[in-house]
């Protein structure tokens, strides 16, 4: 989508030209003001004006030529880069498959690897793991690529920083992990965001270590104390994939965990489908904050299971005073037994909130034959019009009713 070379030079040139124009225009205005004191278009103003016109025209010509010549330059460069990429890829693959035994044909034999070489090896690392992957990682380290990225990640220049963080994320080198965690405290939000993601993917491939000072522990400490939006923390946790479980467990078990992070943890458990954590998740069913109660039930709904300990609070929450808590509780209640859930859900077919009515009807329809029968009854004869309509709609969506029957039921032509 976006290319990333040539932009620095172009930006600089544009900046310079516009900067010059700005000064020139300022001078023009000033001289005009001074000039108008003594007459309308006095010659010094005209002179300046002429000067600016000429310089602007030149700038136009210059930039135009740059753009056109860039076309040729970039075509050649693209081809050259493609060739280089192929060469480097061949070399890296050779190294991966046969080991660094013989130095092989190293195109260039430079101490620092060119960008193309790094791009090649990072792409290969996305494709192959195991012995071959390890050899590539060693090669990266031996060329000092990781330390080079780390230096750039700490540099002041924003684009260099972001480039480096992005590449560290691709490389997933364990030695970069702590530095990425440090960057979570950077002043710029975009740096923090990208570092969080890179830290997540890196941790995902690091072997689990026990102990209070393990990478897990450092990660948890970092996200607790960094200024990150909840969505960013969630992304980072999701990127942990199979490693997320123990970390989430630790987070949820912490009684001092902030509400925001608890919410994030619940969301992540639900999204990752960690069914074995249903109990830990359910612990927040009675939380004073309605957002967290709702998040708990949403999580249980995603997991598709409600542990026994949570049944009571869940059923009570169907009558919660806060509407969005009722919604999530009603949805989750669809995973309970019909005897338990039905009597609690049925009254909410005529709840004041459209969303609760929908959730109640949908859950009832999921409770087996008796649930569907309840909804059918409501569709036919519930005294509340809104309840009838919602029942009909849910039956339609569940393919329990044909469109023709639905129209008949609600008296639509």
């Amino acid at each position: 989508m976006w290319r990333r070379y040539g932009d620095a030079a172009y930006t600089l040139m544009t900046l310079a030209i516009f900067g010059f124009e700005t000064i020139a225009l300022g001078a023009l205005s000033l001289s005009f003001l001074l000039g108008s004191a003594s007459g309308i278009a006095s010659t010094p103003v005209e002179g300046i004006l002429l000067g600016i016109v000429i310089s602007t025209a030149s700038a136009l010509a210059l930039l135009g030529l740059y753009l056109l010549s860039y076309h040729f330059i970039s075509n050649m460069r693209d081809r050259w880069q493609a060739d280089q990429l192929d060469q480097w890829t061949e070399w890296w693959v050779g190294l991966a498959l046969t080991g660094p035994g013989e130095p092989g044909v190293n195109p260039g034999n430079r101490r620092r690897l060119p960008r193309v070489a790094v791009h090649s090896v990072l792409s290969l690392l996305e494709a192959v793991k195991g012995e071959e992957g390890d050899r590539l990682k060693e090669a990266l380290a031996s060329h000092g690529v990781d330390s080079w990225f780390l230096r750039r990640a700490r540099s002041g220049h924003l684009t260099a920083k972001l480039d480096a963080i992005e590449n560290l994320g691709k490389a997933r080198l364990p030695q970069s992990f702590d530095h990425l965690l440090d960057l979570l405290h950077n002043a710029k939000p975009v740096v923090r965001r990208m570092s969080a993601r890179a830290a997540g993917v890196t941790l995902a491939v690091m072997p689990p270590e026990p102990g209070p000072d393990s990478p897990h522990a450092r990660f948890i400490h970092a996200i607790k104390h960094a200024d990150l939006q909840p969505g960013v923390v969630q992304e980072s946790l999701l990127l942990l994939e199979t490693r997320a479980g123990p970390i989430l467990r630790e987070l949820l078990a912490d009684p001092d965990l902030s509400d925001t992070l608890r919410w994030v943890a619940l969301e992540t458990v639900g999204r990752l489908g960690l069914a074995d954590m249903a109990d830990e998740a359910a612990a927040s069913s009675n939380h004073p904050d309605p957002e967290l109660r709702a998040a708990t039930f949403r999580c249980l709904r995603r997991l598709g299971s409600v542990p026994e300990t949570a049944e009571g609070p869940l059923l009570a929450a169907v009558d919660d005073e806060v509407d969005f808590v009722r919604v999530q509780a009603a949805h989750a209640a669809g995973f309970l037994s019909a005897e338990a859930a039905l009597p609690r859900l049925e009254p909410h077919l005529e709840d004041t909130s459209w969303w609760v009515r929908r959730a109640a009807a949908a859950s009832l329809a999921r409770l087996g034959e008796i649930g569907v029968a309840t909804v059918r009854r409501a569709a036919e004869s519930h005294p509340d019009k809104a309840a009838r309509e919602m029942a009909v709609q849910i039956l339609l969506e569940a393919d329990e009713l044909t469109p023709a029957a639905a129209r008949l039921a609600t008296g639509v032509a």
Partner: protein
Amino acid sequence: MLATPRLTDARILVVDDERVNVVLLERILEQDGYRNVKSLTDPSEVVALYDQFEPDLVLLDLHMPKLDGFAVMKLLEDRISSDTFLPILILTADIRPEIKRRALSAGAKDFVTKPFDRTEVLLRIQNLLETRFLHLRMRHDAVPEGQAT
């Protein structure tokens, strides 16, 4: 009677939009003895190359711009007759279970997630090729003498 072709003579087609992945797979196959490997980075050329090359196995990436793996499988499906066993091995970074299901029901015969292990991939390729050649033999044997295949 058809002499059993050696597995390493098999024609293998690699389709992946990333040049790096293509080179990697080519070298891995080469190292393992396969001599007849062709590759594409532009999936829109698949059909033409398929007709010309008639591969025994296709290694296919899923997420490609313009034409993704599913679209390619659909195109190939229209091309091959129903009794041809054309093994398609999907190689992708997408670990979602629903993608796997979708790929397998779209005609893929096997599914490997990236990053992959070299030995595992080679093993699966070998299995698929063996099945393919067995199938070809059976089909050839089923046709009575004197009739064109």
